[in-house]
């Protein structure tokens, strides 16, 4: 391999939230990095992965990114898991000129959130060194409305958008989800941004009841969603569909809802059911999920695929760069990536992305899924809509909440 020929070790920095409230995203870190190191060794890649914990704290994320760059003199930065992690790290890396691959944050909060004035598109600039792949709000809009179209509703949607990076991006009246929903014929009731860890959702429930909303959507953190779901039941608000992001990402979070978790729906960015294979290990999605469960005793979760794909992409980039310790060559290699990974195709070719972000953002496929409760209280995520990515098979149909 060329990297070996150069005789220099490539240092990869990786920042993720291993502790703190976002730790669920990082649970596959060790598992993935072990596999990566093993395969890198097999392939004769001289790489070293230096892992830093953001402690789920954006300040800390920026600090450790600096440490990686300055003390560890890394050549390539990898970062994943929510804008709270990706944005500070990307900002630091961009200003230090370190090639960076980022994932697992919708691209709007990542791209727009890093701009000086997010409200003023004229001032938005592309980045020279940082690249991001995931999906965007337009995909979520399509997936959600497709799922809802399978049901008989009055097309009135109540929105729960907090005042955080995700909530502001989703809830923006101009570039958020509402205009897209409107195009698909859905009216959005948005009572306004609330703070995370709110203890009472009566105001939202009243607003939804008044507007006779039959669907609830949003991007909600798990504790808030539980509060909302309970209060909605207690206050006699029973929508036909609840389709939210974030809150029901992990099976553990859904399990805490008990029966109230059944048939909740959300976007699915990766699953054991996806038809992709790893460029690194050759595993299919089901195999990877099983390997994870075997190794850790825990059920598969969506981030596993993306963390894996992040290292896939890194390996690919390093192999393609003439001198992977040369930052500019590495950057060029990222920009010219075209790789089929376990989460789908990663290529920064601007496909489906507006011009201002085309250079830095790549999109991966998104479908819709529903949580189905098993007899024993465990839940399965079932793909119910694939209009947006027909090559990912569905496993069932969208069902209304009883």
């Amino acid at each position, binding site marked *: 391999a060329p990297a070996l020929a150069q005789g220099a070790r490539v240092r990869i920095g990786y920042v993720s939230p291993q*502790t*703190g*409230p*976002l*730790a*669920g995203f990082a649970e596959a870190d060790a598992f993935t990095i072990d596999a990566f190191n093993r395969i890198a060794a097999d392939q004769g890649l001289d790489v070293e992965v230096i892992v830093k914990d953001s402690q*789920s704290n954006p300040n800390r994320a920026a600090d450790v990114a600096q440490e990686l760059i300055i003390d560890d003199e890394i050549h390539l930065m990898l970062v994943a898991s929510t804008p709270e992690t990706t944005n500070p790290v990307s900002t630091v890396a961009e200003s230090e000129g370190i090639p960076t691959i980022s994932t697992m944050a919708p691209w709007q909060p990542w791209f727009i959130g890093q701009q000086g004035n997010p409200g003023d598109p004229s001032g938005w600039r592309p980045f020279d060194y940082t690249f991001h792949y995931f999906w965007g709000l337009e995909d979520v809009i399509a997936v959600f409305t497709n799922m809802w179209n399978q049901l008989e509703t009055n097309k009135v949607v109540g929105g729960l958008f907090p*005042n955080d990076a995700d909530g502001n991006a989703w809830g923006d009246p101009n570039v958020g989800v509402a205009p897209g929903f409107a195009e698909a014929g859905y009216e959005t009731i948005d*009572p*306004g*941004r*609330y*703070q995370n*860890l*709110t*203890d*009472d959702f*009566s*105001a*939202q429930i*009243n607003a939804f009841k*008044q507007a006779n909303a039959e669907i609830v959507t949003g991007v909600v953190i*798990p*504790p*808030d*969603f*539980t*509060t909302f779901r*309970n*209060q909605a*039941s*207690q*206050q*006699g608000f029973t929508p036909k569909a609840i389709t939210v992001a974030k809150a029901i990402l*992990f099976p*553990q*979070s859904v399990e*805490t*809802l*008990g029966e*109230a978790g059944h048939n909740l729906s959300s976007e699915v960015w990766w699953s054991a059911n996806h038809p992709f294979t790893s460029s690194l290990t050759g595993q299919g999605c089901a195999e990877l999920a099983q390997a994870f469960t075997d190794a850790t005793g825990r059920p598969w979760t969506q981030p596993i695929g993306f963390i894996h794909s992040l290292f896939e992409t890194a390996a690919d980039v390093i192999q393609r760069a003439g001198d992977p310790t040369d930052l500019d060559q590495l950057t060029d290699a990222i920009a010219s990536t075209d790789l089929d990974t376990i989460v789908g195709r990663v290529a920064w070719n601007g496909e489906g992305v507006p011009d201002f972000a085309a250079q830095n953002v790549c999109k991966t496929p998104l479908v819709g899924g529903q949580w189905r409760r098993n007899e024993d209280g465990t839940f399965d995520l079932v793909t119910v809509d694939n209009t947006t990515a027909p090559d990912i098979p569905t496993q069932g149909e969208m069902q209304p909440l009883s």
Partner: protein
Amino acid sequence: MIWIDTILQGILLGGLYALFALGLSLVFGIMRLVNLAHGDLIVFAAYLILVLVTLLGLGPFLAAAIAAPIMFALGFALQRLVLNRVLGTDILPPLLVTFGLSVLLQNALQEGFSADSRRIPAGWLETASVPLGPISLGVMPLMTFASAILVTLALQWLFYRTSLGRAFRATSDDPVTASLMGVKPASVFAKATGIAMIVVTIAALYLGTRANFDPTTGPARLIYAFEAVIIGGLGSLWGTLAGGIIIGVAQTVGAQINPEWQILAGHIAFLVVLLIRPRGLFPRAFD
């Protein structure tokens, strides 16, 4: 109608905040101890209840009843072994120690239980409600509120009608002189913290059934609890209950106007009350 509902929901929410606050109020009132770990202790108790529920298959209420004496013992030991040694006129050492404790607890829980969010299952009670004309009130929130009132009554009785309560107040004023009356300040304080931990367990029961919690959930509500205590006036238990309700109602009313203002409205209510009455609604004569 919406406003009536909003205010009722706010009052019920206030019950939850009052439960968070009552234990704090007890400890704050007796020892001037600003316990920054209070929120984390509530979360700790919630995990304890959860463990009892999952391990022994108990109902949440029975589990809380078993957890309460365990928490009492823990509180007693904590006060005896650690906190007593930093009490004094200076509020800083306890502030720092309880902050350290808060950090310790959070991270220990994280090591032990991971960052996953959990919930204490309460079965059908979770979603049960009582219709009240066009309004319907959740059974759990109603129970929360009722518990807050019961806890206040019980503490009030303990504080002002028993000789232990008198010893609490005397020791709070002057531990050295109290010891000349045959009081052991160290153990009086330890008992107070123990009792506060029983209240903490009750708060944990309702926190844990209302929403998910994870090891870092504690501090977020700590500030509301402090607000309730201070609005109420140092050492006034009814005041603490009233304080909780004020914060709760301010939040729901604020949210009804615009959800952006929900939490802000609670804080602003606190500031306004203190502007008008710097020592809270029901201050005690001397402190």
